[in-house]
């Protein structure tokens, strides 16, 4: 699987990458990263991505708008919303926009990732 993590917090992306590499090295071929929706769309144009872990609140283009565009452009790419618990209302909007699953940032763990993979 080729994964793209979209988040405006570099530290969080690194932690996320560390977790994937540590626990899902067998299934993850490559991990890309983007700090906002626009960068995300640029990468999608260039590379074949299977799963996008999408943050909600970002500068330039937020998660909801980016997800809507991804679903429009790339029907096969799966989007997983990554959010804080306080943003659950927005997660609904993400799901409406086309996200397949969601992960609560506070609960980020191999199990949470596994659960999201399994629903794809």
């Amino acid at each position: 699987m080729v994964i793209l993590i979209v988040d405006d917090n570099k530290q969080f992306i690194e932690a996320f990458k560390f977790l994937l590499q540590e626990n899902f090295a067998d299934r993850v071929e490559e991990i890309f990263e983007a700090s906002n929706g626009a960068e995300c769309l640029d990468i999608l144009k260039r590379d074949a991505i299977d799963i996008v872990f999408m943050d909600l609140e970002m500068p330039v283009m937020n998660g909801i708008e980016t997800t809507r565009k991804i679903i429009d452009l790339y029907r096969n790419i799966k989007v997983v919303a990554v959010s804080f618990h306080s943003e659950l209302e927005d997660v609904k909007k993400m799901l409406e926009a086309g996200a397949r699953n969601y992960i609560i940032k506070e609960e980020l763990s191999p199990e949470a990732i596994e659960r999201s993979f399994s629903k794809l």
Partner: protein
Amino acid sequence: MNSIVKLFESQESFRLLFDLSYDPILIFKNFQFIDCNPATLTLLGYSSKDEFQEELETILSPEYQPDGERSLDKAKKMMKNAYERGYHRFEWMHLNKEGESLYLDVTLTKIPFHNKNFLFAIWRDISKQKEYENNLTKSEELYSLLFDQAADGILVGVGKGEIIDANKSICDLTGYNKHELIGNNINGLFTKNELKDNPLRYDLIKVGNTIIKERNIVCKDGRLIPVEMNTKILEDGRMQALFRDLSARKAAEKALVESEEKYRNVFNYAPLGILHYDQYGVITDCNQNLVNIIGSSKEQLVGLHMIEDLNNNELIKKVEQSLKEGKAVFEDWYTSVTGEKTTFVKGVFKCIYDENHHFISGIGLIEDITKRKKAELAMIESEQKYRLLFENASDAIMLMNEDVFIDCNEKTLELFGCSKKEIIGQTPYKFSPEKQPDGKKSKEKAREKIKEAIQDKPKIFEWVHQKADGKNFYTEVSLNIFDLHKKKTVQAIVRDISERKEFEQRIYETIIETEERERQRLASDIHDEIGPLLSSLKVYIESLNPKGEEAKQIYIKTKLQELIKETVDNVREVSNAISPYILNKYGLEAAIKSFIQKTENVISIRFKSNVKDKRFPLKTEIVYFRIIKELLNNTLKHARAKNIDVNLQYSNGELQLCYKDDGIGLDKKHLSSAKAQGMGLFNIINRVNSIQGDYKFYENFNGFKFTLMAKAEKEEDKKS
């Protein structure tokens, strides 16, 4: 023969005696008339004895004598008396031929002759004596009447002033009765001092002098009464003293003196100029005040012929009118002929006449009313000025009696959009919505405010009014009370504060929005910055495994340390954003320097300050810091500037900030535009207002310029 001759001679002698006697002689025998002599007939008016005898029986005497006794009875009684006693003398009234009364002194003498008793009656006419006696009696009665009825008090005395008679008036005057006065000495009516100073001059009186002197007599009750005493000696040697009561005259004299004194005082000291003039209009006298008013001298004024010498035709006319009709009034500017002084005078010219309407004097009362006139003119001018102010005031001004409009100015009509007719007679709540913003009924609240203003002091309050078209608008009303024509009048100054209210409302909304935005920003900072860091920390911590690969564990630890540091930094930043740490600890200058340092690589900032480490009230420091930060942000975001000047100066308890940049600047319309709101200018204004500071955004400045000045008492000064 001899005896016969002697008898004859004797008879002849008797006859002669009888016939020639001047007194009437009558002879009676046994009460019967025998004979009478010619003197009898002459007295009674008869021509002959026969004529007399015919009448004798009937008319010789009146029926009654003056004592009331019947003549016949009395005559018999008188004759009988004479027969018995031989002689009787009495008075008798007879009647003469004409029936006129005759008073007679009758002497009856009994004469025995030839054994018969004859009565020999000799009459003496005493009519004249009787008449004199009657007259004397009448005269005495008249004298007595005059004596008693005299208006003057009269005392009659003898010797050294011994009183022998006193009339009613002297009794009334002195309070003594007649018996108390008679027998006493006249000295008792005077005080010792009076007698000592003005002794009674009997010596002069007794030689025929009449002495008239004013004295005081002592009444029975001790009062002293002023009298004029007129003393003289009477023909019979008695002295008569007349006393005329002078009390009334003295009182009148005193009153006259007082009246004259009063008039003299009025004349001399009255605030009026007073002049007297004769029937030709020539001034005969004047007081000092007239001299002052006219600005001339008394010498020049007295003798001035007003009709010929004055040059003011109107005044001449008035003087002439007063001489003709008795009174005239002049009121106008007057320039004195003699003094060349111009004054506004009111003159009343009046003529005084005696009871026969003969001219006595003309009196002119001249009042200098220049000041009053000037005050009147000033008042008129002031009224005109007030009217001008009233009509041209930029605020609506309305006058009320209680809660009814009696007048209003032009601005009122403009503000309420109606005519004067629609306002006068109406009440303020007719031009208000039913209720005010606090929910109270406009009618009740308006009456309450007016009542408070009447009782207390001027009131200023906000009020929602309603225009004629029904549109509500905010006003500030100032109520003042003053007396107009002795009535309490309410003056309401109504200022349209819609714009101010709108501005305030926008500031209020901005405050809420700003606070909300700030909260959101802080929440977002915590959420976006610290949240992911903590989530990442969690990921690494969960990945820690003491049994795991060492290099990985070291990597995880390094990551954990990095994350913790970044989290701490983030917390500090957020905390600083909430309450700047440096500002709190080191003060305004340090905080600004610290903030500027972070932006120095972006733009050139020159910061000047004399504040150093001086501290100000926390609120003032925060306001200045936030405003500078806001202005810096604005310059960075919008101004396209290259240089910024920040100057912070403290002097005389005031903190002055001058902020300038050389960017694109700001025009006035930005202040109220949405852009300004976005730029945080409302925020700045609101912060300035919170410390009652003065601020200015400079227009037409080459770039942007803002100044702020506020009282900023230093903390240490406050303590000291």
